[in-house]
């Protein structure tokens, strides 16, 4: 089922403020695939996204989008940022926010057209947001706002959809809905969906590929080949247990590695320190 290559990250290194944030990160993502970027807080997920978006330069290595060098404004990438909560007073209906995805980067006078309206309508339908298309975005629930933002990111017909922690702040049911929606979009629209998360389990049912980040380094591949004790132990540089409990995966990475308390948040079971 693998389509053509949409994103190639090749030996990317990033140093920020004298600290190595990403170290020799390489992976590929294909059209129609759902890829999860998994890692604890501080593992470098947002930095990796910023490199793909062209907002943070890589000190070494390169990023190819649809086979070409990445440019600053890349219409091939749709982006949903982290922690997006719109002010309830913002006079913007859901359909206005989606339409902004078509041409809001352009200067000058806007020409409202029927094609523009219909395209926004089509995207609202694709994310099941027609019911609240005329509501103020700021008054929608977290899950609803997330869906409107996904429509906003998709309306410009990107080949790659990046979503930074789209499941954070969502209740379990909304999170499952957003994951199912993204998986459907990847299949139906033949685009590559790439989302970051610190919890792997909500993504397991739909994930074609995982990019697992720890300490700035990454391994990637199908989940069953990556989320294994031997592979993750090599990535972390010390022993890591991977447990399968009732269809859920629990990764227990020792606390001695990062000294960051966040490391303890990733597994559902807290290791003794």
């Amino acid at each position, binding site marked *: 089922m693998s389509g053509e290559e949409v994103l190639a990250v090749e030996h990317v290194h990033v140093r920020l403020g004298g600290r190595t944030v990403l170290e020799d990160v390489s992976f590929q993502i294909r059209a129609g695939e759902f890829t999860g970027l998994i890692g604890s807080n501080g593992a470098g997920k947002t930095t990796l996204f910023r490199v793909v978006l062209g907002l943070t330069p890589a000190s070494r290595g390169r990023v190819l989008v649809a086979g070409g060098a990445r440019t600053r404004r890349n219409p091939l990438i749709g982006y949903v*940022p982290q922690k997006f909560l719109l002010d309830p007073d*913002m*006079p*913007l209906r859901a359909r206005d926010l989606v339409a902004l995805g078509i041409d809001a*980067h*352009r*200067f*000058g006078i806007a020409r409202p057209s029927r094609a523009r309206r219909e395209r926004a309508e089509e995207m609202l339908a694709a994310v099941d947001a027609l019911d609240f298309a005329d509501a103020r975005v700021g008054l929608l629930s977290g899950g609803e706002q997330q869906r409107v933002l996904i429509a*906003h990111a998709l309306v410009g017909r990107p080949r790659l959809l990046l979503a930074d922690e789209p499941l954070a702040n969502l209740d379990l049911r909304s999170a499952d809905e957003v994951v199912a929606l993204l998986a459907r979009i990847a299949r139906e629209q033949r685009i590559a969906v790439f989302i970051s998360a610190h919890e792997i389990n909500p993504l397991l049912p739909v994930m074609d590929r995982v990019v697992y980040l720890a300490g700035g380094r990454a391994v990637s591949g199908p989940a069953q080949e990556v989320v294994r004790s031997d592979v993750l132990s090599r990535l972390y540089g010390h022993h890591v247990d991977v447990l399968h409990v009732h269809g859920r995966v629990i990764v227990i990475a020792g606390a001695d590695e990062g000294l960051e308390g966040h490391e303890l948040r990733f597994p559902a079971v807290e290791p003794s320190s």
Partner: protein
Amino acid sequence: MSHLLAPVFETGFFESDAVRTAVIVGTVVALVAGALGVFTVMRGQSFAAEAFGDIGTTGGSGAFLLGVGPLPGFLASGVLAAGAMELVGIQRARGRDLATGIVLGAALGLAALFLYLDSTVHDTTGAAVTILFGSIFTIAGSTIPLVAILAGAAAAILLVIHRPLLLSTVSPEIASARGVPVRLVGAMYLLALAATVALCALTIGSILSTALLIGPAAAALRATRRPGRAILLAGLLGVAAVWLGIVLAYDSYYWPSRGNAWPVSFFVVTIVFCLYLLSGVPAWRQRQREKRADG
């Protein structure tokens, strides 16, 4: 038509040059202020507008001292302040308090000196009132071209940047990911805002200027869900407030304390305040209805 309204508009209302200038300036300024005001409220930058107005006191009183009208002074100080804000980056909340306290304090201290000198050296006792609280009837007709140019420039800037500005307001992250030069767009908006606040200061005085900028916009934003309509509505509310203020002030000449017209700025600001209160009524009634439904 004017003879029908004669009881309202005392004789000479439409013939007076001062009134004509006041109506033209007030209308143009209210329309531009509505548009810029909507973005200012959405971006949560009322503080910047307030700072431009306060610093405008210094520029306006300094210009008065030099014998030029206050408008060039309002404009120069506003543009300087916009540049400083952009450089220091006090658009961010953290630097805001400090910069506001220190820079505004110093600027207003200077304004105190200028206003004192205005009234002693130039023997123009009205300077302080004109600059701080405005006097729309004393605006010289020769100021109209400059008002038109400034209003046109502010509107043109907004027209050019409105889409990237809206996207950066919604989410700076999305905007920069889409290649919008977020900082440049923000700086251009600040420049247009500085010009608009200068115009508001000319109309109703430097320290009241934000009332005309923020009030109608805030009321309009309560009433509509769409940015374009909010801009239109804010402009109309502002124009209504200015016109009504001018009529009432003109009429107040014949009110108690006969022979002394009340200040236009008082009427404009009060009307704007009432409009803002009124705009909250639908939401308040909605809440009452919901409360009753729950109970």
